[in-house]
């Protein structure tokens, strides 16, 4: 899958202030890319991830998924695209409080009943949970987990549908160095084996060291 951002602009209104979050960004993400986006707070990193993840629409420019303009898709088609092709790791995890670890990881695969929780899927979910080191927490709900454990559930959830693109906002921010390294190895393996593109917004030097490209954002523009 190839995602192209062509001269994408996005403004927000915060109270009475107009904020130019993206001011004409151009970017191409291809299969197997491992990109980190660095930059100070408010530079537009999250907005850029939202555009790549089809979570938001731009005021001008275009976001092309394999040549298809996301702005022309219906809400349901965009939902389908997100579910099938994109995995997210949110900065604040956004786990479902009423579901346990297994069910949270399983959720994207079961939404819309597009996939049944058949034997191979269950094994895959358990494998992901094991890889993020939560085998002993399968039946625990998010409020019974630490911040780092929740982060790991969010990572496993992002990978469950074997997406073509994984977007992560500070994915290792709440993890200890050992777990962070393990998670990074897992993602790197998926990146390598499945040709999954990874786009992270991070300050973590370990991630930056491992990635293919580092893009720096400043005032809504990609600086490098």
């Amino acid at each position, binding site marked *: 899958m190839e995602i192209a951002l062509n001269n994408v602009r996005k403004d*927000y209104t*915060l109270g009475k202030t107009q904020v130019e979050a993206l001011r004409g960004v151009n970017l191409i993400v291809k299969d197997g890319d491992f990109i980190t986006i660095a930059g100070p707070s408010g530079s537009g990193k*999250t*907005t850029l991830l*939202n555009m790549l*993840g089809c*979570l*938001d629409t731009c005021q001008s420019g275009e976001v092309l998924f394999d040549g298809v303009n996301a702005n022309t898709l219906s*809400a*349901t088609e965009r*939902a*389908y695209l*997100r*579910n*099938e092709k994109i995995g*997210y790791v*949110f900065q604040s995890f*956004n786990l*479902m*409080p*009423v*579901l346990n670890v*297994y*069910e949270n990881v*399983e*959720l*994207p695969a*079961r*939404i*819309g*009943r597009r996939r049944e*929780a058949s034997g191979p899927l269950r094994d895959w979910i358990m494998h992901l949970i094991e890889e993020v080191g939560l085998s*002993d*927490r*399968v*039946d625990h709900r998010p409020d019974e987990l630490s911040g780092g454990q929740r982060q790991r559930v969010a990572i496993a*959830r992002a990978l469950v*549908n074997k997406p073509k693109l994984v977007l992560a906002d500070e994915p290792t921010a709440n993890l200890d160095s050992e777990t962070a390294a393990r998670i990074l190895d897992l993602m790197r393996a998926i990146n390598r084996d499945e040709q999954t593109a990874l786009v992270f917004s991070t300050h973590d030097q370990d991630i930056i060291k491992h990635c293919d490209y580092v893009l720096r954002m400043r005032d809504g523009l990609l600086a490098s």
Partner: protein
Amino acid sequence: MTEMAANPPGTVGHMRSQMQAFVWRLLGSRWKLIIRNVRKQKSRNILLGALIMFSSFVIIYFSQFLAGVHQNFSQNLVALATGDVFISSKVTREMDKNIFERDYEYFRLTPPFADEIKHLPGVNAIAPRLEFDVKVATEIDSIPFRAMAFDRAVDENLYANFSLVEGRMFNKGAYEIIVPVDFARRNVIKVGDRIRLIATTLNKKVNLIDYEVTGLFNSISLSAWFDNYVYVDLAVARVLVDDPEAVTRLNVSIAPDVSVKGVMEELRARLSRVPVPANPVLEPMEWQDSAQIFSELTGALQLSYVTIIVIITIMVAASLAFSTMLNILERTKEFATLAALGAAPKEIRFILVGETMTLALFAAASGVALAAQTYLITAEWGIPIENKELSGFLGSSHFFPAFNLSGYMLGIMLPLLVAFVSSYFFALRVSKLPIAEALADR
């Protein structure tokens, strides 16, 4: 999983967790979310559920109460009339306003005609009655009133509903009369007095006869109706209207195991086939139908039922809408996350509406169970009626509700419909959330 580890294979706990996992797999993630979210908002949903349950209970039980009033009243009416069916002159639209004040025309019940009706298949007995306008002349005044004449030998249910305050019933074949106690007091009539009844005969002439007052009564049934009549023996009333075969209504009692509809058809066929000479057009009518007309006329109960349903609907709809709104405000990020993970707008709507409808379904089902239980108890034991007139109206010292399927349907369908309507609008809005904005809490 850890549950499995905690419950070794072969144990009850293991089987239970396997079963639970199987059920959850069948239900799918959406239902998992729905059911768990309903359980999560425990205190709010208990209150809301209690309101829906109560509403359902009221709708169902009130409908059974209404059906009970109608059934009790109909049965009483059939008993009082000494018959399930009556034959009278054709009822016109103008006459149809009140079955107790209809001015039926005289007709002649000749012995062959009476015999023919009496021997129709399924007919148990017949009881002729004569109702007519009179002027009751006392020493002081002459008062327009109504008189009813019946044969004590065949129509004993009627006078079983009189409560004689003073004196005794009239004797068969005697020029005796009983009058309502209030009427007697107003017109200074005492037991032993003689009053004169003035009436128009079948030949449109005026006739008058003196009767001795033998009793003053209070009606203990259908009071408004009974108190509007003075009662005399049928034979002597026929002397007054100058026709030995005159009747205005012939009550027909039908054997318990025979279809009323079938006998009605027989009667209709008979009445249309051979008209009785010099009679008006006659038609049979069911007392059950008359009771229905009467129930509709009284209307107050139905009106209060409709009012209660409207109030309940508004209350439940407002509460559900408010709760759904709170739900959305509290869980905006959750819904945005679902959308981000790939839930289509219709799936988000399904989850939100599903939560409200699940709550409504469980609560309404509890209301149905409660109403059914209450019905079974009250239908078995009855509700004692303290009020004498009401007790007379229903013909029993106890009130018995009657099963009403449509009440049950309404009791379960209405909360579900209200739940759907009151949550769908909010669900529609939440399914169109700007995802990035909702996730960022901007």
